[in-house]
């Protein structure tokens, strides 16, 4: 079968580019000037922030991803090949890796011209270890192998409320902290509400790829758990459903505060016994089941900490908007932390 000339040219261009990629790793890793490339592809190298953490460096990380998305979708630029350079990263957390994973998987949807998204892993040994052990590379085609560690439950992508996965996380906690099933019963319930909420808010965003991501890590006597969904976010959902018509919809801090409170009878189904997920999550953060709890959704952050029996709740407006919702919390045994 003959193929048309334009199609052949397109194919040849891509073939040449792949060959050039194979032979020019030094150029890609920034050791040579990238201008030396032999032909003019619309290719762009993006340097990711040195502190890749949504929890500690939210604005810079989200700004970086927003810029990449903007440059890939604007007609003026419309890059065909994107290279995400993580060589300068010196601090990385798994929440940012999960966001990056969702971003990479969805980037192709934003731009029709985009043909490839490549990247490297950090040169910093500590960061490299985190990337390899997190399971991030399992979901991408990579020459670097995934490492396994007994201190991690690798990134898991779910598309239903998976009670068996929640049970696995509880078993991981039992193994690492030396507690038993009865200790984590409340956590199981609270965790289920978070996954249920993520599953509900993330509809159709990923298509067949999944709805939410989960990662657990044991560190210094604590198990840290991160859940991310890349839906439209709680505030956008609340606005779309018209749940709080009497509130100022522009005041996102108040809107999230209202969504987290019980007793508003705001169920869109007209049933007062539904839509209690967020108030239940907040109640579990207040009673200490979800420790050091933080929730990022759209452009608001909610934090709840317990300090000397005092509940400290805080709503913070963010400069950037997260596409989706991120939950972060910890679990540890009180007695062990006091020691």
């Amino acid at each position, binding site marked *: 079968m003959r193929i048309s000339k334009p199609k052949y040219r397109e194919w040849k261009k891509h073939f040449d580019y792949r060959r050039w990629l194979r032979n020019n790793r030094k150029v890609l890793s920034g050791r040579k000037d990238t201008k030396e490339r032999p032909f003019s592809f619309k290719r762009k190298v993006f340097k990711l922030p040195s502190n890749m953490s949504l929890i500690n460096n939210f604005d810079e990380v989200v700004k970086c991803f927003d810029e990449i998305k903007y440059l890939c979708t604007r007609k003026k630029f419309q890059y065909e090949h994107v290279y995400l350079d993580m060589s300068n990263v010196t601090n990385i957390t798994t929440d940012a890796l999960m966001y990056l994973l969702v971003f990479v998987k969805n980037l192709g949807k934003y731009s029709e011209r985009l043909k490839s998204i490549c990247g490297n892993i950090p040169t910093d040994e500590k960061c490299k270890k985190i990337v390899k052990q997190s399971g991030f590379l399992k979901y991408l085609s990579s020459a670097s192998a995934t490492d396994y560690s007994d201190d991690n439950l690798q990134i898991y992508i779910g598309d*239903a*409320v*998976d*009670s*068996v996965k*929640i*049970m696995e996380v*509880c078993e991981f906690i039992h193994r690492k902290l030396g507690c038993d*099933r*009865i200790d*984590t*019963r*409340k*956590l*199981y*319930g609270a965790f*289920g*509400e978070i996954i*249920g909420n993520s*599953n*509900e808010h993330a509809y159709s965003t990923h298509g067949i790829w999944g709805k939410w991501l989960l990662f657990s890590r044991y560190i210094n006597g604590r198990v840290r758990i991160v859940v991310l969904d890349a839906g439209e976010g709680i505030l956008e959902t609340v606005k779309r459903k018209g749940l709080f018509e009497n509130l100022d919809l522009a005041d996102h801090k108040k809107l999230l505060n209202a969504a987290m409170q019980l007793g508003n*009878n*705001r*169920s869109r189904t*007209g*049933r*007062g*016994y539904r839509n*209690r*997920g967020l108030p*239940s999550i907040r109640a579990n953060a207040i009673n200490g089941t979800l420790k050091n709890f933080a929730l990022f959704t759209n452009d608001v952050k909610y934090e709840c900490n317990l300090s000397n029996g005092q509940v400290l709740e805080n709503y913070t407006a963010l400069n950037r908007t997260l596409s989706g919702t991120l939950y972060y919390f910890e679990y540890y045994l009180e007695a062990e932390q006091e020691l």
Partner: protein
Amino acid sequence: MIINIAKDFSVAPGPRFIYQGDKSGELFRTEILEKAYLEAKKNNEKITVILDGTFGYFDSFLEESFGGLKRDHEEDDVLSLFEIVSNEEPALIDKVKDFVANALNKKK
């Protein structure tokens, strides 16, 4: 009649509805609880539901199971036929009672 959720249904009970995931409250209600309820009502006997032995419960699972049963049998005093046992997490007994009491709440 005794229903032990951990043995008769699952050690990891799931979400509210069947479409949301496995081992849901809706499945438990339709497959186990409702049948037991109708039989107990017919024979005028009590049902003991043991909540112990599982990894825990999502609130929505319990609400859909017991609150859902109340919504299906609005005219009945559903709770009078049940004895709820929860030694591992006693607060669940009050939760179940609360869910049944508020099962018919409509949006104001």
